């Protein structure tokens, strides 16, 4: 399976006819079992891109193509939204089985799969809690488990850890890295945190400020499994610096434009 993001452009037109060009000719591919990270300054169209890939928004031009899929694996993608998007009226368990219900699995199949992902994200004992009874980090893990339980070919994540405190965030990055190695799926991960991008990614797609264009695609040649030792290695820091150089200019320009 391979996902081709084929020359995607997106211009929003609001009710008054005012146009906002969010994305310009985005073109790259996500290979099977690949962890691709998209970084870019705030407002450059990252969420827009993710929604288009998830089939939740139409591009103005271009298309997203899944190659080498069988139709019985629909939906191909699952999304971890920035704001969790958990169903407040469903318990942790019920949130996780939502997609399985839609696939028509029976109750026992549902709970076996749910069990597996509940332990994978470390939420044992919280199955019967409602989202409002969970911390931010736990909500995000439910959201990840819900997406993974649906067995997508491609998992899309929109700044999933940006609402977390720095410590939780670091731990969640380790966890996610481990989960990716366990599941061997394709991940597309959106962030504006460069360290996070280098730590997680096989490749990092660097977007320019709005309208988002691909500035560069960087292959991250670091060993796996990745853990805390990585973050002090010279090669890791070099990648971080290289991406920062791209982003820095963009960020300055964006800042000057706003003020």
């Amino acid at each position: 399976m391979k996902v081709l993001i084929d020359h995607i452009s997106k211009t929003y037109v609001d009710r008054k006819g005012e146009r906002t060009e969010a994305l310009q000719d985005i073109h790259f591919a996500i290979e099977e079992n690949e962890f691709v990270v998209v970084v870019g300054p705030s407002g450059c169209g990252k969420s827009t891109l993710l929604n288009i890939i998830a089939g939740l928004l139409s591009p103005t031009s271009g298309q997203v193509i899944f190659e080498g899929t069988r139709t019985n694996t629909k939906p191909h993608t699952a999304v971890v939204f920035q704001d969790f998007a958990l169903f407040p009226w469903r318990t942790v368990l019920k949130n996780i089985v939502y997609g399985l219900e839609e696939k028509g699995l029976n109750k026992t199949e549902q709970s076996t799969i749910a069990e597996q992902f509940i332990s994978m994200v470390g939420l044992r004992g919280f199955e019967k809690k409602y989202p409002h009874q969970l911390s931010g980090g736990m909500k995000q893990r439910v959201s990840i488990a819900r997406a993974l339980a649906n067995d997508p070919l491609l998992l899309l994540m929109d700044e999933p850890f940006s609402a977390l405190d720095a410590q939780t965030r670091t731990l969640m990055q380790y966890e996610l890295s481990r989960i990716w190695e366990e599941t061997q799926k394709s991940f597309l991960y959106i962030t504006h945190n460069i360290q996070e991008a280098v730590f997680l990614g096989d490749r990092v797609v660097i977007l320019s400020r709005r309208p988002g264009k691909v500035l560069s695609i960087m292959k991250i040649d670091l060993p796996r499994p990745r853990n805390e030792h990585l973050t002090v290695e010279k090669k890791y820091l070099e990648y971080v610096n290289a991406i920062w150089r791209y982003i820095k200019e963009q960020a300055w320009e964006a800042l000057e434009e706003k003020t």
Partner: protein
Amino acid sequence: MIEKEIVQDKTYFLQMKEHPWLSVASFVGIFLFWEMVSRMEWVPPLFLPSPSGILLEGWAMLKTGLIFKHILASLSRILWGFVIACSFGVAVGISIGFFSIPEAVGNPIIAATFPIPKIAILPLLILWLGIGEASKVAVIALGVFFPMVINVYTGVKNVDPLLIKAALSLGSNRARIIRKVILPSILPMVFAGMKLGIGIALLLVVAAEMVAADAGIGFMILTAADLMQTKKLMVGLIILSLLGIFFNWLFQKLERVFIPWKQ
């Protein structure tokens, strides 16, 4: 110079204190005062019977069972009207909230009919449906329908679009989204509509029974007034108050059961 100053909580006045004894005391106080007013005959008992007299009258009506006939008659009208209105209200509210064609058709019709006081439609309903139960149930149903439909419509419009996106991305189609996202999202609004509706239902049942009926609390109050049976009339008012309190209590309980995710 070193001074010591203890920091005071500037928001203390925002913390609403509870005065349960005050509520009870004022309630009892008013009744005692009332009792005194009628015992001393400051106001003729025909105009203002004493609370104890009203209670005794109520007790007598309870024992003869007469009161149940009236309560049951009113309750069954309320119940039918209410159930019909809520079902239609939810169905129509969801349709016009979720689908563009029903919205285009339904919105102006609702906007035009909503402002008509429902009691003004009663003569027309009697003309159409006769003097019996149907016209009374219909007027209650109409009265409850509007707050329900408007609440549900607002609820649907305010469903978090992110949750709909999440459901879509997990493989829901539109029918499933209505059942699994829209319905639970609007439940609080449905309950709010029911609470508004029950007040309207009580109002309309009494009004309808005063126009034409041979049983019911409204009928009872009207005949009592005709015969200058002020105590009986007062019993009717107390029953209405109790019914209102009961339904509010009931809906609050149901809300707890059906919306467990809200503490």
